[in-house]
């Protein structure tokens, strides 16, 4: 069976299941405490510093933790999940894992994570973009301030990375926090999307956030300032800014859309990935194992075709 990933504004069932599922994962305690996380990071040589209370964490918090350790895992180029070619396959694997956890708690093996087609909102006037139905109690709750309404009003943040110190702070559980449209004026629009899709190469030397061409860097959003995926993080702001950004479930809606744009690019250009096994920086090559706390051994090559896990309701028209 394969999940179908739908636009969150279209699939009401997928929307409700997603909102319910992330809350269930956030309330599912694991018996793991912050001290265990610090220990795990240390055993893997990852320089993450922790502060605050030694509380028990949930399954959802483990995804937040996984994202933080991948980001703290510096490579010759970027880190284990960002700033290089592996950005797209790593986040694809990460979403597949969350999708499977959601399927488990929802008891629905066909559940697919919905996506947020942000470029559609990016076509609106900036002052309208954060006042859409998406930021209401039917969907994601408040665009600004603490999220108290709708299902996500039940989410609690336990671990977050302080931007000024990059220490992982474990605090009394608190609601998710947003500052939509206060640190970036507008979401990416269709023109931004089209130009990312028009890139001919997947990625190319120096394979970093400094490459001036290539689909990956355009989509990650380092091409020409703060754009695309990066801009969505900055536009939502609040908990979406530091490396603990999966604390806000909108993280997954953003990345599902990023993945869908990549899938559109591959439908057009073929399932091509670079660097090959014998070129480019270690940790980003097509057969390099990706950092996975589940202990899997997936490499970018293994996820180029996602059909065994999911498909999209529609790809972009290009």
């Amino acid at each position, binding site marked *: 069976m394969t999940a179908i990933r739908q636009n969150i504004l279209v699939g009401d069932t997928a929307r409700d299941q997603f909102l319910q599922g992330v809350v269930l994962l956030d309330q599912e305690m694991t018996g793991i405490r912050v001290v265990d996380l610090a220990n795990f990071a*240390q055993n893997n040589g990852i*320089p993450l510093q922790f502060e605050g209370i030694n509380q028990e964490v949930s399954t959802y918090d483990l995804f937040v933790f996984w994202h933080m350790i991948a980001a703290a*895992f510096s490579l010759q180029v970027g880190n284990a999940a960002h700033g290089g070619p592996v950005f797209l396959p790593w986040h694809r694997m990460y979403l*597949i894992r969350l999708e499977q956890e959601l399927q*488990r708690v929802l008891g629905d093996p066909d559940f697919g994570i919905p996506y947020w087609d942000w470029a559609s909102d990016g076509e609106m006037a900036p002052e309208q973009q954060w006042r859409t139905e998406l930021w209401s109690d039917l969907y994601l709750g408040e665009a600004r301030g603490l999220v108290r309404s709708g299902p996500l009003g039940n989410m609690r943040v336990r671990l977050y990375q302080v931007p000024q110190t*990059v220490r992982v702070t474990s605090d009394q559980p608190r609601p998710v926090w947003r500052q939509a449209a206060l640190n970036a004026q507008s979401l990416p629009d269709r023109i931004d999307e089209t130009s990312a899709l028009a890139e001919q190469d997947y990625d190319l030397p120096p394979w970093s956030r400094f490459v001036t061409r290539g689909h990956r860097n355009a989509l990650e959003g*380092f091409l020409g300032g703060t754009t695309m995926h*990066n*801009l969505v993080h*900055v536009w939502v702001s609040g908990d979406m800014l530091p490396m603990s950004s999966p604390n806000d479930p909108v993280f997954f809606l953003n990345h599902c859309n990023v993945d869908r744009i990549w899938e559109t690019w591959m439908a057009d250009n073929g399932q091509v990935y670079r660097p090959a096994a014998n070129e480019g920086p270690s940790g980003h090559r097509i057969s390099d194992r990706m950092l996975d706390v589940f202990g899997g051994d997936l490499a970018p090559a293994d996820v180029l075709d996602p059909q065994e896990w999911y498909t999209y309701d529609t790809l972009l028209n290009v």
Partner: protein
Amino acid sequence: MANCSHEDLISNIKSGKRVVEEAPKHGHQHGKKPKLSHASKREAIYKGRKIRIRTTYKIEIDGEALTVPFTVSDDGRVHCHGLPNYAAISALDLVRRLIDTSPKEQPDDEIAALLAKKAGGHRS
């Protein structure tokens, strides 16, 4: 993929299992204090001449050293790990952004009061 389960996740993390083959590139800060400055190196060949620029930032906010390292890219944009998705037009811009986005510095926002209350609670 099929044989990776919720139980694997829990037991791997709980047991501190090693899931990576080698240590990260800059993962050598154990036990050391975080560095207060960090050099970024830009190199280019121009008309046969080799250019090398090393940039180091020493930043203070209200006299207090900022510990998160800033790096500068070839196009002059400044970046730090604390705001990973943001490419700033200058170091000053990035410091302003760090202040703008700190949950503790939002006087009009409920988050600041919430965190201040907690900080007070810890002390007492």
